[in-house]
């Protein structure tokens, strides 16, 4: 009885997994088709009448799309590099700022810190557009609109990161910090040599979630970067996809690789970290 229901649930979970993985598998397999094959199956005057056909397995495995993307023009690699350094800069900033603030909200409460933390939670929930105009006005005052700093600076002060770090620091018993304090460690030493190494789950989740958010940003660059040539891969990708589909698939794979690697590397930390993030 028990065994039978287990088999049934395993079958059900496998079916769900197939649905969940389908988009990624489809993108990767289509990236190994050459332009002709893509046109044959998806173009308006394809051999299959006016509709696109479902086409999962390539007729001939071809690296043409990858060659085009990597070698024929520098654009795609430049965009990729743009996105990468923007994202890495933002995530590094978030780690420093969020750890300091999270430590303060968790272990060094000061007068008003509870109210401030409530404000952080409220801001964390807001859609980006709510603070869009506010952001724009300040950045314009500093003459930063149109520069990369306009995207980087506001993203570094990431409410969700502060929230995440605070929750994961809350899980560390105060006795540990007290012991270090008695041994003469300063607060900054306690944070960097004791608390942070103990909060790998929180850090890991911050890195994954911050990375994904920055890597996929759409709204901010559209408004805050003036020049189309500055757009990161996340926006450029949408354009490529409409212009040249086979390149769209291969660029999708390119755009998928960094977040996938970060995700696989920090997955265990993310799962642990999500466990701590429950509201208290």
């Amino acid at each position, binding site marked *: 009885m028990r065994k039978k229901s287990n088999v049934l649930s395993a079958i059900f*979970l496998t079916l769900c997994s197939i649905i*969940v993985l389908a988009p990624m598998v*489809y993108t990767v397999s289509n990236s190994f088709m050459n332009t002709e094959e893509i046109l044959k199956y998806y173009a308006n005057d394809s051999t299959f009448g006016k509709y696109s056909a479902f086409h999962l397995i390539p007729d001939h495995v071809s690296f043409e799309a990858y060659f085009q993307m990597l070698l024929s023009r520098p654009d795609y690699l430049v965009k990729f590099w743009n996105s990468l350094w923007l994202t890495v800069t933002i995530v590094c900033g978030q780690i420093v700022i969020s750890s300091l603030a999270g430590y303060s909200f968790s272990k060094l409460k000061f007068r008003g810190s509870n109210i401030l933390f409530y404000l952080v939670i409220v801001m964390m929930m*807001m859609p980006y557009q709510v603070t869009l*105009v506010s952001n724009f006005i*300040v950045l314009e005052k500093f003459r930063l609109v149109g520069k990369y700093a306009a995207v980087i*600076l506001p993203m570094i002060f990431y409410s969700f990161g502060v929230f995440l770090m605070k929750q994961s620091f809350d899980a560390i018993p105060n006795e540990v910090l007290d012991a270090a304090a008695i041994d003469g460690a300063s607060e900054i030493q306690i944070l960097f040599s004791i608390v942070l190494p103990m909060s790998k789950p929180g850090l890991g989740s911050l890195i994954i979630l911050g990375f994904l958010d920055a890597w996929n940003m759409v709204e901010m660059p559209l408004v805050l970067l003036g020049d189309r040539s500055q757009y990161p891969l996340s926006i450029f990708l949408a354009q490529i996809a409409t212009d040249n589909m086979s390149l*769209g698939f291969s660029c999708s794979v390119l*755009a998928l690789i960094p977040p996938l690697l970060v995700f696989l590397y920090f997955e265990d930390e993310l799962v642990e970290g999500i466990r701590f993030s429950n509201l208290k």
Partner: protein
Amino acid sequence: MLPKRRIISKSTFQSKTVRYPTSPFEREGCCIKRNSRVGLWFALPFLCGFFLFYIIPFAVSITYTFQTGRNEFAGLSNYRSVFASSAFQLAAINTGRFILVGVPLVVAVSLMLSLLLFRNFSGSALFRTIFLSPMVMPVASVAMLVQVFFSDKGVTNSILSLLGIPVQSWIQSDWAFVLLILLYIWKNAGYNLVLFLAGLKSISHEYFEIAMLEGAIGWDTFRYVTLPMLRPSLFFVLVISVVNTFKSFREAYLLGGDIPHKSIYVLQHFINNNFAGLNYARLSVAAFSVFVVLAALVFWLYKANRRVSEEL
């Protein structure tokens, strides 16, 4: 700004440590209270940016809502005109509808999957990774696939026409809403699932054993043991799910641009379009309304959560 000093009276450690009481919510039993002035210094870098880029300009933008274009005091006329405009009403209704449909669905799906994974131990780590993986898929790639499959000449229509079923204009019809909801569930179920799994693992086995001894089976155990014990996780899942409904705007934008089909025209489109038209007053009214509603929601969830934690 310095908090008053007070000697601990009810501490477990009867030492002479000086204590700086900071808030009524402070946890009991912590004995060495380190200098809380340092705390402000640690939070300062964040608070500077947070106030500079978000809070202060947002407060300034609230004043725009009471002004006309020529900086004259306008009273509530901006509010009246925005609330009466059909674009705002459509956007507000759609945003609310997306939350009311999407959040319960994603919670139900992820709760069901987590219950299955919780029982099914072998391979559950692999399934967990698979269900989390949509997180890493770039939004633009997802949008491209949706175009491939659901544009007027897309794969779905080709299959429908083969079967002799009338074709649909998926992205430019009410189906766009359904597509967006499905994408939302696909993307977010994994994260919620992990939250629920963590909640399930924290429930002591004894509860299930007692329930079994009392003769509870299947649904009863779920209804009277699992669900009440999961309530703390549920609150956070709800908060995160609401946050993530707003992120669906990215998909909506990449699929429909500035003016998508009216079934997926949400408040973010309204704000964005007013920004493009430099209509700050209307934009700020919408932004401030979202802020008020969400702040009230967070407050209510926070209070409800505290009540539940005290019950347990």
